[in-house]
């Protein structure tokens, strides 16, 4: 495989062509050193190098204290120690470590340093609407010096290279773009000038034996003034001379999360940008492809046309991605679902980077490594083959225990199977599919179509077999339900293919997560008039975390879904649905034929009542795949206690 071939950058050889790209982690330690790379960062990066990653690029560090884009954003001046430890740990595995350096400019935040944001021109960030200050020559000189000093520190720490951030949320891109740079001076008439100066200054301190890379937005999706795929060719040619590699990304000020979208956007969406650059740049400048490349097959194909592939989320989902490709006897890598539910952490609450399918990601220092062989070997009965039960079975079996799963349904996957039928959420089923495949590979016995009973648990108890109850959830009773005279389906029933009556469908979505939204999209796609009721001022508020909030609203609008914002489903007892505005009390009547309950469910764990057994996932409390997998894994490890 080309993926597994070594590659040389500035005379330094990486063992594979797979990059773990720069991304927010929130792994910094709260407190005075909150902007340093922490021991948790080092463990996180080292784990990917152990798993065969070729090049680890550390989280983008601000080159100057005028930039503090999120609370735990690394500050280069504080990163010397973390870079040194990362370089040492990564080098131990033979991989390369590169430091990403950047400045968020007008896309930063003034909340932490409480100063004006820096920008080429007076263009407020659409996300915050904050007007930045226009940089003068002194500020520009300070910025260039900041890049140089930060690069010098990284090199001194033993890093193999520097990656300059001119991608989604960067001051360098803001200078390159006609959207944000309307300066009349030499930095405006020649918008690439600043980046050239930065590259030259960094190269001057780094010397020839250090890789210098550029993360470059090649499409801002704003063709009226922004960087376009066409204009990126000239830009690439102008900038390629000074750098060893370019990572082609797609994103701009109107969608700063767009370089790493969820499954609503196609896999490999930015590949054409990388191919285009490869076609016009000299061979001495390597080109890396980026952008929802999570499937090794796609990555391998891309390497036929470019030199490197960035597979960041794929390695959050499975740190052993490359090692497993090199040794198929270890099984297939755990697939990335591109759900963005726990790996996307640009969020004021500072969540720690993780993965719904691999909960140890981001928690390498605190969570036990589930690998290894147990002694003595035990018997385990798992009730339920949803994500919690499957993960419990998989981990226990991998550790050598003898595992049997009983599942009432004919198929595995539990609630995930239904959720994956929501609009463009099909990759969710990749994870449960992989869990089933791994369970089978590891010798787990699965009995489908049988409802586990108290007798099964009694028998297990008598035989000394341990039990994990992962029986999922049941529908709750929303306030309007007892008097409802219309047909009602839960979102799950609808997604599982229940028959729909003809007519209007009202979806009660008190959660604002992906389920209600995707149900509305499915209905609209089927030509059904759908109404979505949300308690919030916008629909789908919980999608802010995954980056799909604004995009989802746009899709619903285009699909013609009627949105009832800041509202609640008040009553469905007299033939239609009464929807109430939460603030004004005004009501709207919708002549609906069906109500869909997209609200929270209730735990279903009656089997565990009165018994000392482990319970995991929705059977504890109906939540998401992340909690199910985490608790399933914990239950498996607890077998040995």
């Amino acid at each position: 495989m080309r993926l597994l071939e070594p590659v040389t950058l500035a005379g330094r050889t990486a063992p594979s062509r797979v990059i773990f790209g720069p991304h927010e982690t929130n792994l910094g330690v709260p407190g005075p050193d909150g902007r340093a790379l922490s021991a948790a960062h080092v463990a996180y990066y080292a784990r990917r190098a152990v798993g065969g990653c070729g090049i680890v690029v550390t989280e983008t560090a601000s080159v100057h204290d005028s930039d503090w884009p999120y609370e735990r954003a690394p500050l280069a001046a504080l990163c010397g120690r973390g870079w040194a430890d990362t370089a040492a740990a990564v080098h131990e595995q033979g991989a390369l470590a590169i430091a990403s350096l950047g400045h968020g400019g007008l896309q930063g935040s003034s909340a932490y340093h409480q100063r004006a944001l820096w920008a080429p021109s007076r263009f407020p960030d659409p996300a915050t609407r904050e007007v930045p200050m226009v940089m003068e020559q002194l500020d520009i000189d300070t910025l260039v010096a900041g890049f140089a000093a930060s690069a010098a520190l990284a090199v001194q720490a033993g890093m193999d290279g520097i990656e300059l951030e001119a991608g989604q949320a960067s001051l360098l891109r803001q200078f390159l773009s006609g959207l944000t740079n309307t300066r009349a001076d030499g930095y405006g008439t020649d918008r690439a000038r600043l980046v050239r100066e930065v590259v030259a200054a960094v190269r001057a301190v780094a010397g020839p034996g250090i890789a210098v890379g550029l993360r470059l937005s090649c499409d801002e999706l704003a063709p009226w003034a922004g960087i376009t795929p066409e204009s990126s060719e000239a830009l690439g040619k102008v900038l390629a001379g000074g750098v060893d590699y370019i990572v082609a990304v797609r994103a701009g000020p109107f969608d700063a999360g767009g370089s790493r979208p969820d499954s609503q956007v196609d896999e490999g969406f930015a590949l054409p940008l990388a191919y285009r650059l490869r076609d016009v740049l000299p061979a001495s400048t390597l080109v890396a492809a980026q952008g929802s490349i999570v499937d090794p097959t796609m990555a391998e194909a891309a390497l036929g046309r470019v030199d490197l592939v960035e597979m960041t989320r794929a390695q959050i989902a499975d740190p052993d991605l490359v090692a497993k490709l090199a040794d198929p006897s270890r099984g297939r890598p755990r697939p990335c679902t591109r759900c963005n539910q726990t790996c996307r952490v640009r969020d004021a609450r500072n969540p720690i980077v993780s993965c719904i399918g691999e909960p140890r990601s981001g928690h390498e220092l605190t969570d036990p490594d589930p690998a290894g062989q147990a002694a003595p070997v035990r018997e385990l009965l798992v009730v339920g083959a949803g994500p919690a039960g499957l993960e419990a079975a998989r981990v226990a079996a991998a550790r050598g225990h003898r595992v049997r799963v009983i599942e009432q349904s004919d198929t595995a996957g539990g609630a995930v199977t239904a959720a994956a039928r929501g609009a463009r959420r099909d990759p969710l089923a990749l994870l449960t599919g992989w869990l089933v495949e791994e369970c089978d590979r590891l010798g787990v016995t699965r009995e489908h179509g049988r409802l586990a009973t108290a007798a099964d648990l009694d028998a297990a108890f008598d035989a000394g077999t341990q039990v994990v109850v992962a029986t999922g959830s049941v529908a709750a009773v929303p306030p309007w339900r007892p008097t409802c005279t219309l047909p009602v389906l839960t979102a799950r029933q609808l997604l599982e293919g229940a028959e729909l009556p003809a007519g209007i469908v009202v979806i009660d979505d008190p959660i604002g997560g992906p389920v209600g939204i995707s149900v509305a999209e499915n209905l609209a796609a089927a030509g059904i008039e759908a109404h979505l009721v949300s308690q919030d001022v916008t629909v789908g508020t919980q999608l802010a975390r995954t980056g799909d909030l604004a995009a989802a609203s746009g899709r619903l609008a285009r699909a013609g879904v009627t949105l009832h914002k800041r509202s609640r489903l008040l009553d469905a007892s007299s033939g239609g649905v009464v929807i109430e505005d939460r603030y004004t009390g005004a009501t709207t009547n919708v002549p609906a034929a069906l109500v869909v309950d997209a609200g929270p469910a209730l735990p279903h764990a009656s089997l565990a009542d009165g018994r000392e057994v482990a319970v995991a996932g929705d059977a504890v409390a109906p939540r998401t795949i992340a909690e199910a997998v985490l608790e399933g894994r914990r239950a498996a490890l607890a077998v040995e206690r």
Partner: protein
Amino acid sequence: MSGTTYRHLFTPLRIGPVTVANRIVFSAHLTNYAENGRPSPQHAAYYAERAAGGAGLIITEEHSTHPTDWPYEKLIHGFHEDVIPGYRAITEAVHAHGTPIFAQINHNGGQASSMYTRLPVWAPSPVPDPLFREVPKAVTVAEIAEIVAGYALVAAHCRTGGFDGVELQCSHSSIVRGFLSEATNRRTDSYGGSLSNRARVLLEIVGAVREAIGPGMALGVRLCGDELIDHGTTIEEATAVAAMVEATGQVDYVNTSIGTATATLHMIEASMAVPPGYALWIASAMRKAVSLPVIGVGRFKDPLQADRALTDGHCDLVGVVRGQIADAFFAAKARAGLATTIRTCLSCNQECVGRMGLNRWLGCIENPRTGKEAVPLPAPVARPRQVLVAGAGPAGMQAAIAAAQAGHQVEVYESEPLTGGQVRLAASIPHRAEFGDLVRNQLAELARLDVPIHCGTAVTSALVAERQPDVVVLATGSDPDRPWWAGDNGHVVDVTDVVRAAVDVRGDILVVDELGFHQATSVAELLADRGCTVEVCTPGMVVGQDLGVTLDMEAWWMRAAAKKILQTTDVIVTEVAVAEDGRLRVSLQEHTTGVGSERTVDWVVLAVPAKPRDALWAELAGTGIAIHRVGDCLAPRRAHAAVIEGQRIGAAL
């Protein structure tokens, strides 16, 4: 005015074993000052400043009682023994001023998520909280015992840490509230059903905590008088619970609150849109139900208002939180007869409440010291300099205050006849009058510092040459800008033109909101009140989006509906043309769908980003004179940025 103006405010009161010198309580509120679950030096400095400022009693922010409870990142994990050194630092710093300090202890229950704990959220029943939206795990009886033990453990930590008392938060974000309320307690065992069953966990905690702290510390219970939610606790049940609490004989006072932190937060930390003293009726009802001292809360802005609440018999003590965030010396100034010098809270919620939900440290729009009490004050300058400040808006006035406090010779010039800049304009609008206290407070401070203000005099390079200052601080603000589509049509005007009454706007109005804060909504209301037909449109997903941060959104929606103000989102203006009848024809495009629409209106009012008024900066650059820009003339932003920048530059000259 002297301290004797107040009949009750400065009389002592016994709260169980503790005697407070006055009735002003700095009651519990989040600060986000904790680091890694432990209290920080900033906590100690923050509370000590309020103790030095004369507060009668300080109650700290909540300390969590159990590892299942971690709803927001910067929570104090009271259940870890390693909090005790931090507790000692806080209590010693506060006791140095002779002020008693209590610790609030709490488990947030279902009003939380598993984001930080990676454990199921605990609650009486699997009823998800409307904010966190995570289905909690219904606790077992064994887990209830664990919760009770957690309270006792943390209470013991508080005792070791030197606190004078403990308050049980059972009010707006608490597992105890969850048990008390029928909205969240669906249990069928002995902890659910009747009120006495729902109160069982509270009474168990009271007993366990009293045992842990012994007779030498005060014990209080904070109860919610009305959750303001369907099937929630109302005053009848709340007063009945207060009576049960009193009947234990183990509790020394009752604190009160209104609303729940996750469903009706806008009523807990009400902005200036809600009348002062709005929650006092709850304390009043409690005081009738029990003989224990009762604390009343809810937008107490000035000491006379607080004294009146005591005189009228509504409560025995008054919680003044934001009032003492804005001015730590609220109590001392009142007691000394200097109430007019108190830096009155605006209830704008921009830097205190507004930062809490965003996981940022607590500050204050007009008190730059808030949140930075642990940073030593700079020594006065050795060599005073002549400072000329151009502009008497919030940035310029704060720069002048800071420079004068540092010992410099300062004078302020303002081109307009009045000081205050855009703050004065903003405060002239319905519901926003209290914002004007910012100007009043800054002017009062400048008067005390003897800083001359020359209104009606614009600073020019000639004036600078004549005055020959060592430093010029430019705080000249901003000018309205016009988007490309506005052209030069005289009926397309800025919000400031409307507020200044520079134009007589009537008829059908379209307000374009690109700022997402009070500018558009305030003007829309002003015009609707005058009889105009008003629509507000925005390219954003919500009109006035950041009103949610300051808890102004709910009331805006209600008022907008009452005033028939139409709100249109996700649209951009593509053209403004003059129709045949002379009115304006505005073309809008929904950017999510590309669908166009038209409006025919009499006026278009712009709430769009302004441009810096910085001509003098260019003029003076290169003349060798030291010059700084602060506030809008650097980058047009909101008032808090102006004040912070003015303070930083003024203090650093």
